[in-house]
């Protein structure tokens, strides 16, 4: 052994451990031969693919070159029967092209805030477009769908121009959406198209909300949420069990968390059939830190009433370190709720 340990007197049995554990080698010659074959096969495939990729890219470059040439000839050739193409015909690159603002409800604290989103375009202009809003926690990078992709129409959005013109100067119409703290975005002005979302803010810190229209980024707004002490989850009764979480939304039948150990738990969900169908992800965030662990990845759930909930999901979860954590649960990347849990130190 060339790299021997740092100075330390070794007990007698230690030397025995230097020898191989088995009387004879256990990794069979057959498996070794097999591996050799696999190695060479894989290598040939990789090299072959690289070669093919290279050929394909050279081919693609040639094609582009030829096409450009043809196009250039077509543009520069004088033509009698069609208007000459000019640069002004080219569409501008996709980018932010609407102005929007968000008015979160309540105090800027952790919890379910509710928010109204106002895009300064008429519903007529926006009808049929897909709107999507994402929320990102800057410290941990945790991201979820604040508003999953939704088609804008009369059932999903409110046309503020028509509301305001129909009640003339009565400004109280929109008072139920009046923000308790300042509106982020453009200066107040009447009109626009309004959407609402639940706006669950599960963690203190800086949140950035990004709006997309038909997949095109329309800019972000930042929201500061005041830090709050980690507090244990409220409990509630459902069926025969006491659950932790948010009543009528998300419940955890807590099997007890011990650091580094996989334990069995059961999640309970409430919601429409659509809301409780999809993939569940669970993230754990350590209180007072930016540590984010993805502890359950995309397991499918289906509606199925049990213990008073609309859907349940038994699973195994592991949190690596003891202390105070908050579990964030998403279904199809939509945040369902947050459940603070206490993790006991590992058993020795």
């Amino acid at each position, binding site marked *: 052994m*060339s790299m021997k340990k740092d100075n330390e007197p070794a007990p007698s049995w230690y030397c025995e*451990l230097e020898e191989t554990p088995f009387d004879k080698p256990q990794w069979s010659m057959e498996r070794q031969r097999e591996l050799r074959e696999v190695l060479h096969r894989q290598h040939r495939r990789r090299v072959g693919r690289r070669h093919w990729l290279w050929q394909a890219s050279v081919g693609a470059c040639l094609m582009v070159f030829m096409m450009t040439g043809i196009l250039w000839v077509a543009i520069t050739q004088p033509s009698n029967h069609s208007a000459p193409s000019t640069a002004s015909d080219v569409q501008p690159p996709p980018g932010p092209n609407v102005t929007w603002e968000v008015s979160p409800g309540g105090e800027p604290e952790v919890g379910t805030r509710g928010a109204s989103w106002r895009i300064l375009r008429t519903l007529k202009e926006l009808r049929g477009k897909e709107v999507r809003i994402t929320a990102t926690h800057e410290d941990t990078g945790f991201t979820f769908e604040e508003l999953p992709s939704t088609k804008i129409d009369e059932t999903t959005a409110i046309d503020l121009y028509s509301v305001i013109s129909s009640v003339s100067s009565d400004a109280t119409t929109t008072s139920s959406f009046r923000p308790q703290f300042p509106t982020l975005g453009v200066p107040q002005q009447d009109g626009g198209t309004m959407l609402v979302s639940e706006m669950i803010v599960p963690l203190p810190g800086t949140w950035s909300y990004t709006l997309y229209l038909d997949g095109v980024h329309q800019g972000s707004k930042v929201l500061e949420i005041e830090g709050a002490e980690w507090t244990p989850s409220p409990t509630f009764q459902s069926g025969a069990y006491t659950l932790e979480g948010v009543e009528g939304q998300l419940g955890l039948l807590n099997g007890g968390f011990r650091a580094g150990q996989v334990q069995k738990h059961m999640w309970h969900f409430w919601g429409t059939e659509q809301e409780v169908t999809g993939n569940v992800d669970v993230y754990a965030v350590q209180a007072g830190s930016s540590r984010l662990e993805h502890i359950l990845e995309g397991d499918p759930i289906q509606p199925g009433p049990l213990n008073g909930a609309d859907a349940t999901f038994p699973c*195994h979860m592991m949190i690596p370190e003891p202390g105070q954590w908050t579990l964030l649960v998403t279904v199809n990347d939509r945040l369902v709720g947050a459940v603070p849990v206490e993790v006991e130190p590992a058993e020795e």
Partner: protein
Amino acid sequence: MEDLKSLKMAAEDIPLAVEELMEAHGQDVWNYAFLLTKQRESADDITQEVFLTALRKLHLFEGRSSPKTWLLTITRHKAINWLKSSFLRRVRLFSTVQQRELQRSAEQEVLAQMGIRRIWLSVMQLPAKLREVLILHAHYGLSYGDIANVLELSIGTVKSRLYRARSRMELMLKEEGDVNEKG
């Protein structure tokens, strides 16, 4: 072979280099996978995966550790993944926990059939955390620094785990000795 500069080479030489690594450290990798997972089949599969990973990643290897330490690190990651998924498979298949004693004796039986040396039977009874640190130190002869790298722990933790592993071993060996004397 221990000098990794010899591994910086043209693409066509990579399989040969991996084969060389395989010859030099294949048994070590297999043993480590086995000592962690306690299963022959998983050790076979993990060993294969380790060298296929080596084939893909050899060009990224920077020679900051020895090739052996590098391979053992890959082995450990694969073994942990295997253990995690097999744990879930087991738990899902049998909702009730298997009887521990029964499991242990079957395990000992298999180990004995494989011709495992006596001292290693005791090592295999250590909890995984203590076992791996003892194996890396006593069997693979890694330094504290290298062990800390492989296990992604601080040197202090490595030392304290090693100390605990040794004490447990001493205790087990003493108990065994007592039993043998009586017998």
